[in-house]
């Protein structure tokens, strides 16, 4: 059993600098969990607490149902891949990979077998006698992963392992790490990144963390769920804004009326539209925020009966396959629509964009998502 459980985890540096607040999380056996969030949200700190190289200020950390708060790093059966690789510069690739096993007093023949097996999986065989300084970034990263694999840990921890690699190598290594995790699926993995693409591509489960005053007010965890959960059903505005590129469009609106079929919203520009959300007791006239992802908007004619917004085009960016159309928002914000590459829009002309109300999101004044009709209520 290598499940990981975090209960009310807190981390404070010094007397009052809180970086982690109220983290409750369960990572199942063999699950690939990604900690995602902006800089300073404490995702690396949380990972280091699981690793045992950072103390847990309060709360309980369990790995395989055993309390780990007081267990030293070496005895937690975890292996970590660092952002800077952290290869020992005075040891060859072989020695780097064998070091942990030698510390554990594993038999010499067994060490040799395991190192060579891992080297073969990672195509490091010809590099075993080289020193780390004679390796490229990608090769060093593979050695760092190899060093983790040979120990057959219960938990793999990755601290932004791809951020020092170039774009092409990142994509390659991303697939490689996912492949390796499936191969060693007895072990759970926690992967820290600030890159939402990595998180979406690799995760079974994403833990989106927040920083600053929101963290102090609501706790560190903004939402936990599968990548598609977070993308399609963000529980608050922060999650909606963080995931997706370009980010979600937000339009201020007020509640005109509430029926069984949903809410009628009036935008600041005067347009009204019906969306399938419950009011959760919010009174008519209250200000809410309507969210629509750029990829959920499409060009329509000006007299279409669909939900639509008509705004002057500010700028168009063409990428061949698709284009980004920037339109004037209702306030200082710009609306962005991701449209097909063969859609021609001209700057300063008005453009009408339609959208399916099912793809909209509505957030209350606190930034909490209103419940969608027909969907399970999501909580903060």
């Amino acid at each position, binding site marked *: 059993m290598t499940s990981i459980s975090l209960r009310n985890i807190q981390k404070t540096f010094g007397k009052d600098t809180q970086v982690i607040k109220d983290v409750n999380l369960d990572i199942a056996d063999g699950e690939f969990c990604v900690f995602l969030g902006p800089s300073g949200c404490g995702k690396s700190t949380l990972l*280091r607490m699981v*690793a*045992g*190289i950072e103390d847990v200020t309060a709360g309980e950390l369990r790995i395989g149902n055993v309390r780990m708060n007081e267990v*030293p*790093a*070496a005895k937690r059966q*975890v*292996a*970590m891949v*660092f*952002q*800077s690789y*952290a290869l*020992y*510069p*005075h040891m060859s690739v072989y020695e780097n990979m064998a*070091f*942990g096993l030698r*510390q*554990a007093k594993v038999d010499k023949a067994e060490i040799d077998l395991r190192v060579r097996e891992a080297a073969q999986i990672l195509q490091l065989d010809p590099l075993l006698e080289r020193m780390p300084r004679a390796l490229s970034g990608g090769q060093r990263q593979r050695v760092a992963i190899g060093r983790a694999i040979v*120990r057959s840990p219960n938990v793999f921890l990755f601290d932004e392992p791809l951020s020092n690699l170039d774009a092409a190598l990142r994509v390659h290594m991303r697939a490689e790490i996912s492949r390796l995790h499936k191969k060693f699926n007895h072990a759970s993995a926690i992967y820290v990144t600030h890159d939402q693409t990595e998180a979406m591509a690799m995760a079974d489960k994403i833990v989106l963390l927040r920083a600053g005053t929101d963290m102090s007010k609501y706790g560190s965890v903004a939402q936990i769920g599968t990548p598609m959960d977070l993308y399609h059903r963000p529980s608050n505005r922060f999650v909606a804004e963080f995931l997706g590129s370009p980010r979600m469009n937000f339009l201020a609106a007020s509640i005109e009326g509430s029926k069984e079929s949903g809410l009628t919203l009036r935008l600041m520009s005067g347009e009204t539209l019906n969306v399938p959300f419950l009011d959760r007791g919010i009174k008519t006239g209250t200000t809410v925020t309507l969210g629509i992802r750029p990829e959920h908007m499409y060009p329509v004619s000006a007299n279409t009966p669909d939900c639509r917004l008509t705004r002057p085009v500010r700028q168009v960016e063409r990428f061949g396959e698709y284009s980004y159309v920037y339109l004037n928002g209702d306030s200082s914000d710009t609306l962005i629509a991701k449209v097909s590459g063969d859609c021609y829009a001209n700057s300063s002309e008005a453009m009408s964009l339609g959208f399916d109300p099912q793809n909209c999101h509505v957030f209350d004044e606190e930034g909490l998502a209103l419940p969608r009709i027909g969907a399970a209520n999501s909580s903060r």
Partner: protein
Amino acid sequence: MSSTITSGSSTAASGRSLLVRVLIPVLGLFWLAVTTLPFIFVTMTSLKSQQETFVTSGWSLPQSLNFENYLAVLNGGFWTYLRNSVFVLVLSIVLIIVISSMAAYAFARLRFRLNKPLFGLIVAGMIVPIHITLIPIYLLTRNIGLYDTPFALIGPYVATALPVSIFILTEFMRQIPKELEEAAKLDGCGTFGVFWKVFLPLSGPGLSTVAIYNGIGLWNEFIFAYVLTSTPAYRTLPLAIWDFQGQYASNIPAILTVVTLTSLPLIVAYAFGQERIVKGMMAGALKG
């Protein structure tokens, strides 16, 4: 207008570069003279007879290559002094490296309450002139029964070398990435394991610096050797000059022969180790 400004600034720049091109070689030659002329003087004089030093100018070349002084020195107590010097030096350097590297690791990496004050206190030890410690050290050495023994010099040598050695190694170890320490802990190393298997091997250049820097100082050390030993059997090389220094006369060429022979190992060591000394001294000054 703009071309005038450009040409004016380029004239100023070329003037500065001319100054730099002339000044740097002149200063370099001056420093070369300051460092090599005394050595040339000492070597030349060691090849003269005592009589010759009285009748010729100090800077005149020897009339013939006279190795009598070298024979006299080598046939005297030189080898005993050399053996004592090597013994004291090796033991002192080993102790300095062991103690200072452990202390440096603690100051650079371990979190404990008195880390900064203790480090400050040790660094402050660098400004204490050794001469004011002479009498207490002499009394202490005599009281513990080490006066005029092969071990008399080791304690004071190690103690006086520790502040600068700890300072150099602490700065060096602070440059070693924290992730290596964390990786070693995850690999199963305890605090001593991290020090012994990761920090010590990675501190090679710093340890060499400390060894060479202190080695040069201790090889030439005179005052403690003079105060704490009295029998020729336990004296070190710098005291060999006393063999040629009488109450009323001194054999200058023989004394300078001792100086030349004493300097030779240092010159060889520096020739091979200068890169490491400079590297160690510069550690942390530049982003790697």
